[in-house]
């Protein structure tokens, strides 16, 4: 992992010195697209909370949005709640509360291809998954379903593991709206 960081740093330093911002974005996008094939990545193990039960009909007079389910027993939890297992390193608003889903942006926004990553343990299959937290940009942010989970988050000195950065790069507007969590692959644990 130290080697990975060293390589990343050298690449960033080198690129910053000789390339334009857009080409950096494209190159980093390619790196991230291939992240699932990387053998080692930062692994912060999630103590993912057990998914809340969604048994029983929701109260239609509660004023709240009804609980949601992924519909997949291997992917348990409510994507509109902070304790959904794959949100273990999320810091922001959940797109599932804005018209998007756990993996897609709300209408009218644009998904940034540049992102930060975390590693979360799925309580259903006990695997650690590398999760890409892509920000959706250009919409209206107003704080609904705000979550702050910091498993594996690191200070901004290591930005690719930091969730305070607005990851709206390579998109028309850098104004933050919400965040999705997309599985890139299974992490290979060093331990």
């Amino acid at each position, binding site marked *: 992992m130290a080697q990975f960081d*060293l390589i990343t740093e050298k690449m960033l330093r080198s690129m910053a010195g000789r390339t334009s*911002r857009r080409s950096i974005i494209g190159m980093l996008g390619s790196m991230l697209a291939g992240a699932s094939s990387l053998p080692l990545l930062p692994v912060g193990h999630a103590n993912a909370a057990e998914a809340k039960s969604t048994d029983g009909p929701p109260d239609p007079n509660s004023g709240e949005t009804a609980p949601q389910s992924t519909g997949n027993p291997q992917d348990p939890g409510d994507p509109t709640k902070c304790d959904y297992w794959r949100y273990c390193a999320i810091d922001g608003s959940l797109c599932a509360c804005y018209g998007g889903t756990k993996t897609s942006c709300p209408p009218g926004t644009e998904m940034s291809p540049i992102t930060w990553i975390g590693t979360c343990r799925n309580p259903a299959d006990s695997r650690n998954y590398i999760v890409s937290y892509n920000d959706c940009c250009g919409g209206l942010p107003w704080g609904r379903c705000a979550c702050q989970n910091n498993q594996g*988050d690191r200070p901004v000195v290591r930005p690719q593991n930091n969730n305070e950065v607005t990851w709206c790069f390579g998109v028309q507007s850098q104004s933050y709206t919400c965040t999705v969590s997309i599985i890139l692959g299974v992490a290979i644990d060093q331990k």
Partner: protein
Amino acid sequence: MNKAIGCAACASLLAGFSTFVMGADFPNPLPPEAIPRVETLPAKYPTGWAFLNYAGDRIELRNVGSDSREVKGQLQAHDSATILISDQRPELYVADTVWSRGTRGTRTDFITIYDKQTFNVVDEIVLPGTKRALITAMEGLTTFTDEQRMELVFNFTPASSVTVVDLVNRKVLGDVEIPGCSLVYPSGKRGFSTLCQSGTLLSIRLDEKGAVAGRSESKAFNPLDTDPLFTASALIGGIRYFPSLHGRIQPIDMRTEDVKVLPDWPLVSAADASGNWRPSGWQILASDEQKLLYVLMQADAHEGTHKDPANEVWVYNVASKARLKRLRLVRPGSSISLTHTADPLLLVQAGERLDVYQASDGSLVRSLDLPGFHTRMQIDPAR
């Protein structure tokens, strides 16, 4: 006389009686009041006032040193805005970002220069390249250097650079590339240091025109894989103190251009080790005029809790590296700061409250509401 007329007569009588009684107590009517009228602030703010930056979305000046607890004024802030408060000129500097159509359109990064007494906009400096780092408002995104003649703005696109701004002549001087490094901390007479992914500290010396006059890089001292430093720090006697996630304190002497990384030392003694105490929160450090170091500390800490609110503030003498006292908070706090007085107040942002303690004994003095606020506050008490 019908009922309606009767009621009207009664009402008139009552109104007249009421006027007579009130007039007896208040023989003179309220005087006409001036229009328009706008408040102004004193040239030197009382030390009981503090700027509160709500995660870069809103900035207000609040009277935290009095039970009146009132808001003294507000400054615009839109996205990751930071404020620098000058004591060399009667000015405030807010670095901010807006889009021409709300959340879309043309992006503009800029520094607004406010008059400290009127909060009127004196001028603005547009920052080129739309590259200002949009990161939750925190220490290190902007800083003064050269005795407040210059402001440094950290950029992240995700390539890292620093924009050097001349605040006296109100113009941008240029950019300094800092690939692989993040944030800016003033060092030397005119320059800055920045934390790098390789675990080193890169220090840049600037000339009068804001160009790079020299640079040096420390050996690696920040173990990002195992126990990285927080980016929050406290300044005591020109030495900047950074805590680590697991509870070390790392002093760095930034008084001269020859920046020195000094030996680190533990915040938690062997006797307290079983409690798993670690620094935790957002603005987790503060220092006072007595050169004491205050650190937000959390028990039972583990991976992922480093930004959680903490239950205690531990106070250290940095010369002896000894813990002097533990202050227990009435509510877990995320950000702390100290007023700049001989008998300082400890300000603690705790959820939607700002709790004010006597720093000397940890007693709660008062509590202020922070409506709508969740976390990530930067507190800047007046000097």
